[in-house]
């Protein structure tokens, strides 16, 4: 394996490297959103709901449908309510998408393939992902619409409540790995062993299954997906904070929604399923295979997320808070306690 030339040892300046990385990340988000939207929204959901889904556009299973939808959104009139706070209204969708972009900056897709190695990668990722709530509040307030305002306030209350279980779920992983760097967490899973057998390393889902479940539930709430989709609830608030948005700005929300799902799935895959690592592959080969391995793992997690989304009804706002404070947070604390005891004992 070491006979392979060192692919990434290109001698270019840090500025060019950063530019290349930024462009790649900028391309990943819409591509990821498109892939998730196509696979889950158009195909898996249609299958679960006994519908055909779009089959014509583009020939093979209607692959062009989402791109066509995007083009349709670009052609639509950009409507802004007369009462709207114009500047805030315009910026809000971008704020949401930017918070998604920032998460990708620290997710490693290979031993060397990462925009920025951060020693506090986990906390950085969780912190910037919650920036989106600012965008949601901005959108809801600036729309000058009562439904939008209700939606935004719900979203704010919900995202704050679920930030905590999300963090607590991750703390168990951090204790076990002994590092908060995402790359370090991947490596400690890769180099770990299950009772002395190191055939597949030690993916943290085996020991942190409670944390994994917590993370999935809380990220479902962070993504405002069913059963925690009160902020957008079509049948109650029409579309919540997005109700006044049309055309291109609405497309931003769409990209933000699925891009964030993509980011959280990647984060969960990194934290619990071993990220880019695959047993017996090291060095440059890991750099080559890494993105594909991570993508495969991410899709498994995303399938779980969307499966729940298409199956469950929606909780009520107060029930949602009760679930967070009465169940998820105590379980999360207990999980940390147990993890700590085991860490000290073994």
């Amino acid at each position, binding site marked *: 394996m070491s006979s392979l030339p060192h692919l990434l040892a290109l001698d270019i300046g840090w500025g060019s490297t950063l530019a290349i990385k930024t462009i790649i990340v900028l391309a990943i988000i819409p591509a990821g959103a498109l892939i998730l939207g196509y696979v889950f929204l158009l195909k898996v959901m249609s299958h679960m*709901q*006994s*519908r055909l889904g779009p089959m014509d556009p583009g020939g093979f299973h209607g692959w062009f449908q989402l791109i066509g939808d995007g083009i349709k959104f670009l052609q639509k009139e950009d409507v802004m309510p007369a009462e709207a706070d114009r500047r805030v209204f315009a910026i809000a969708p971008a704020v949401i998408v930017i918070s998604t972009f920032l998460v990708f900056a620290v997710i490693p897709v290979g031993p060397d393939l990462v925009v920025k190695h951060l020693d506090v990668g986990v906390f950085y990722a969780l912190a910037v992902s919650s920036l989106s709530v600012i965008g949601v509040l901005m959108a809801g307030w600036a729309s000058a619409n*009562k439904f939008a305002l209700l939606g935004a306030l719900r979203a704010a209350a919900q995202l704050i409540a679920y930030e905590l279980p999300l963090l607590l779920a991750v703390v168990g992983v951090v204790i076990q790995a002994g590092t908060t760097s995402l790359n370090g967490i991947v490596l400690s899973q890769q180099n770990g062993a299950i009772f002395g057998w190191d055939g597949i390393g030690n993916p943290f889902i085996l020991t942190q299954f409670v944390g994994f479940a917590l993370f999935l539930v809380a990220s479902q709430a962070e993504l405002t997906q069913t059963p925690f989709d009160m902020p957008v*609830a079509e*049948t*109650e608030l029409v579309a919540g904070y997005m109700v006044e948005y049309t055309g291109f700005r609405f497309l931003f929300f769409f990209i933000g929604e699925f891009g964030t799902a993509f980011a959280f799935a990647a984060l969960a895959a990194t934290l619990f399923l071993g990220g880019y690592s695959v047993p017996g592959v090291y060095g440059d080969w890991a750099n080559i295979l890494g993105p594909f391995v991570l993508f495969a793992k991410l899709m498994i997690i995303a399938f779980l997320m969307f499966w729940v989304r*298409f199956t469950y009804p*929606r909780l009520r706002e107060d029930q949602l808070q009760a679930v967070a404070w009465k169940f998820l947070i105590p379980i999360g604390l207990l999980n940390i306690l147990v993890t700590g005891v085991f860490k000290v004992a073994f």
Partner: protein
Amino acid sequence: MSATNPPRAPEFDIDHGAMRHLADAQVNVELDTGDMILNIGPQHPATHGTLRVVVRLDGERVLSADPVIGYMHRGYEKLTEFRTYPQVTTLINRIDWLSSFANEVPFIDAAEQLMAIEAPPRAKYIRTILTELSRIATFVLFLGEMGLQVGALTPPFYGFRDREYVLNLIEAVTGGRFHPNFNRIGGLKDDLPWGWIADCRSTMGTVLDSCSMFEDLVLGNEIFEARTRSIGIIPPDIGAGYGVSGSNLRASGVDWDLRRDGRPYLVYPELDFRVWTHADGDSFSRYWVRLQETRESALMVLQMLDRIPSGPIMAKVPRIIKVPEGEVWVETENPLGQMGYYVISKGATGPFRVKIRSASFSNVSILPWLLRGVYVPDVITILGSLYFILGDIDR
């Protein structure tokens, strides 16, 4: 909501010390937050059309709710006065468009009573079968749509799919999916098509299966239960006082079904069926009762398919229909509740006056009482569980 001005400040000297004291007390008790008035509808995905509910909110809690109706008023009662009796059926099956066949039955029944004609037994059987099929079509859609009201995306598609099977049956007989216009005074337009009975039998099996599926998918879901149990409770006396009828009233524990308890009509007296009630009166029990009634209707159709007699489908009726002078009140158990027509005839080719008593109008009249004090999300589940059709409210 009234646009009165705030009360004018008192015109006397104010004791500032006392006022300051008062202000402190005010702050300590509770911050005064203004109410927000939210228009749910007329364009809102949860109101099945154009119902408008003006709710006054404190946070997300409803202080008062006023349904505003009439966005879809089409003036059917007046229009009937300018139509002949056969033409009126075209109008009235657009009242409750989900179960239009069931709407035709009481009116035709009224005309037949006035003319002292009785439809042949086979026609009565076919009418009953089609009425029950339209009940199934309505309820199966409800079973799915209620899932959507509480936020599940998948059940409505199953509901629409299963309804399509039933509508195909109705279309095969009448030629119309939605507005069959198939009843004639004294009988029916056509007989059943060849092979229809076997089709209907297999489709009823599908309906029974899908009822079990809804029981698992929606009724058995913990979140659905948390959202609907003890939400929107209608006590039996209050419900009856507001004129709530049909499954909504039976879900409050009132054992009253016009198919069994009313004046005998169609072939219901010959059928063996159970009237389902539930003691709770909440949204959950309304769903539960409709689920059981869907099942019961499918079983009734299967019974009738076994017993359907042969024979003519039209009685002897004059070529030009003139209804003798008289007046009659006919009420039937429609999918949405008690549906009645008061028909006054002056001996002409058309009715002199028709009063339509539609179920949904009375069912939504309980909303101001029912919605007080609930949360906004519960407004939607309660509206969904009452299950009204806008055409049936506004006529």
